[in-house]
């Protein structure tokens, strides 16, 4: 079979997958009696048509960059971490504990400490499945799914029975001190010229972008990344090279869990300013779609996170302004995972056919 040129592999395959997902989504909308064009207009206006919309889109994208990077790091080590959701929730717990522990004098200190807390708790939650995979061969996909549910149960218990302040009805932690409040984009000089209204997007965005660079450097510029990628491609070969499988599995999952946990500084500290039930709202799962769509490369992840930020904000707008339920965005999310992840081969086959035709036309033209 003909190989695809590299640019087609990197750019065209995800774009065509996206196109398929968009077409099917449009068909779904038509089937439930809605206008896809109208829906897209509402989404575009709401998500990127104003600075205010961008403020939400970027807020969602920030979370998705973290969870997308989390899935990416694990993927490169040959591990499919479905546990981003649970790790993010535990990260939220870490953020809450840090923020509530001291009357923070300045947000920079609080951010540093909360980031560490989020990473630590997220990594800790990934550590058990990692250990079980590395030492006892328990399938990481199943254990991380189980840990999502265990995390959810744990947080319900903590929020209802432990962290809930006396007299408060809803299961949530106390509000964080003022010193732990992160500047939103509308609070930052320069950005406040663009974002004139309060938006949820906050300084965490820059932390996320920084982490994308860090992940890139780790994967392609360090020995650790080299070993992770080699181990991910071939466990048997890694053994030959003396790469310690237990060490790599555990480190990769700790990194992955830490990244997933760190998304909580965006939503828990940057937006809600207290720990709520189900704080991550599925962002851990969206990380899977983001990583697949972004071809497991940090640049791709950032772009895909933006796209999903658009989808999430746009989807919320649909729920507000049209009779299309907000769940439309989950449909698109599922379709993107389906086409970029599971039907990857099909998309490639179609592209190869097209390229084959193109080549034979060219050959005929020359002859």
């Amino acid at each position, binding site marked *: 079979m003909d190989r695809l040129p590299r640019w087609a592999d990197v750019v065209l395959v995800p774009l065509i997958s996206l196109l398929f997902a968009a077409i099917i989504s449009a068909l779904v909308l038509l089937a439930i009696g809605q206008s896809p064009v109208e829906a897209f207009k509402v989404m575009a206006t709401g998500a990127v048509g104003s600075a205010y919309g961008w403020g939400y889109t970027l807020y969602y994208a920030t979370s998705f960059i973290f969870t997308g990077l989390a899935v990416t790091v694990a993927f490169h080590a040959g591990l499919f971490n479905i546990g981003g959701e649970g790790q993010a929730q535990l990260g939220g717990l870490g953020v809450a504990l840090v923020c509530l522990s001291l009357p923070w004098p300045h947000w920079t200190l609080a951010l540093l400490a909360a980031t560490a807390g989020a990473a630590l708790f997220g990594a800790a939650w990934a550590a058990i499945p990692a250990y079980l995979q590395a030492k006892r061969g328990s399938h990481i996909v199943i254990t991380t799914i189980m840990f999502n549910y265990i995390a959810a149960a744990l947080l319900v218990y903590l929020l209802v029975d432990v962290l809930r302040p006396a007299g408060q009805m809803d299961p949530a932690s106390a509000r964080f001190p003022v010193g732990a409040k992160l500047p939103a984009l509308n609070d930052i000089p320069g950005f406040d010229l663009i974002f004139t209204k309060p938006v949820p997007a906050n300084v965490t965005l820059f932390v996320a972008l920084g982490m994308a660079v860090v992940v890139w450097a780790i994967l392609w510029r360090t020995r650790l990344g080299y070993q992770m990628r080699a181990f991910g491609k071939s466990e048997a070969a890694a*053994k*030959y090279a*003396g790469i310690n499988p237990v060490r790599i599995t555990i480190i990769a999952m700790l990194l992955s869990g830490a990244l997933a946990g760190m998304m909580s500084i965006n939503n828990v500290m940057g937006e809600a300013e207290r720990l709520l039930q189900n704080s991550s709202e599925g962002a851990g799962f969206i990380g899977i779609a983001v990583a697949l769509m972004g071809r497991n490369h940090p640049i791709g992840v950032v772009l895909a996170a933006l796209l999903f930020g658009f989808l999430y904000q746009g989807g919320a707008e649909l729920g507000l302004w049209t009779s299309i339920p907000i769940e439309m965005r989950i449909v698109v999310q599922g379709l993107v995972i389906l086409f970029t992840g599971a039907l990857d081969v099909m998309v490639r086959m179609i592209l190869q056919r097209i390229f084959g035709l193109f080549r034979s036309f060219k050959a005929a033209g020359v002859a």
Partner: protein
Amino acid sequence: MDALAKNMGRRATAAPFSIELKGISKAFGPVQANKDINFAVPKGTIHGIIGENGAGKSTLMSILYGFYKADSGQIFVNGQLTTIPDSQSAIRAGIGMVFQHFKLVQNFTVLENIILGAEDGALLNTSLSKARRVLRELAQEYELDVDPDALVEDLSVGHQQRVEILKALYRQADILILDEPTGVLTPDEADHLFRILKGLKDQGKTVILITHKLREIMEATDNVSVMRRGTMVATVKTAETSPEALAELMVGRKVLLEVDKGTPNPGKVVLSVENLRVRDEHGVERLKGISLEIRAGEILGIAGVAGNGQSELLAALGGMMWATGRVTLNGAELPLSGAGSDGQSRRAAGIAHVPEDRHHHGLILDFSAWENMAFGYHNAPQYQKNALFMDNDALIADTEHKMAEYDVRPPIPSLAAKSFSGGNQQKIVVAREMERNPDLLLIGQPTRGVDIGAIEFIHKQIIALRDAGKAILLVSVELDEIMSLSDRIAVMFDGQIMGLRDPATTNERELGLLMAGVAGSSSGAAA
């Protein structure tokens, strides 16, 4: 020879041929695996097909068994034009196949494996009792006894192969194809297999035996066809040819396995192994107390049928498997399990390792050539920019240099390893390992799946390293390679060393006996 060859070319299809192929061609992308193949197998004969790795034997047989569809050509079975789109059609046409890698369900019983796909009716009990009866008959008829209720995973390799043959016979195959059947067998088991095949022939069945071992062809077959680079170059009567003539047909020129090498100049002992023992993950002892020594400036060749512990010996010394016993390198003891026994520690100690299987161990196929050049040596100081980062530029420059020196083609460091040919992939591995200037080189199957030109090049490199005063442990299933390269030969059988021989004074017959587990008088000359 000529008479038969004329027979093969005859147009009539009513001749008593079990199988007749006309003009079969098959290409995989740009690779022409089979080119215009014509050949015929007379009924009731054992027909050998011989050729080097990649000559197209297996592809041809896969076409016969319906695994691949030929691009062009015709297949006649018993004189009838037959299309074989899938395995089911092949079975219906009376063709049975015993693959090199058995197609058995490990946790099924022998009976369950036999009836799989050939059940009578939707319920199992009638099929099982019928199979039990038929199996008993076949066992008596062909020396094919095997416990019908044993789980396949508990059977020896030889018995598993019998199950495969029984599967084919249960499906009433008249034509039995065996693909490299003796590669995994002990000589005893192989002899038993050939007795079975003779028995089948006597019952009027046709046997096609694919192999690259001349000895088997000469011993077992009536006729033999020779394949070379996708074409069928000759079909001759076995009785009218000689191993030399067949070898020449196979390779296309006089086989010149004489390697130009001077007398060895052994120095001090580099590697000393005492009572090395290894168990596999099932707890089976694979190395049963190996002791050997290799001196600086000598090549110790390990001969043996595949699966007699050679792989485990390399794995234990290369840090891929835990072992017990005592191993010293230049007098310093190497840990054999736990911390300090991994591949990194071995490399640090001065052991380089060209593994037997470059696809699964030696290379990361998706990595570029330059990334592979650091594989196993990713911690080496010259590839680090500073404490944090690797120096990819230095690595690429280093790769360019090694590619030029070892004539790797194409010399493009950024090309993925999977895009190189087998010979060039092997050169990348060999360059990486030899250029570390190790005290000890472990090298397994150095020329498996490698073209002739690269074989000569790699052999020369091994000799050059020896002449530079390094110790070399060479493992190969190719006896010719062992005999022409080694300064001493150790023969392994069933996890033990059967004896040490001097290549100058031993011969293939003596080594063959040792490989078959027949202990000779230990010759002092080689020790």
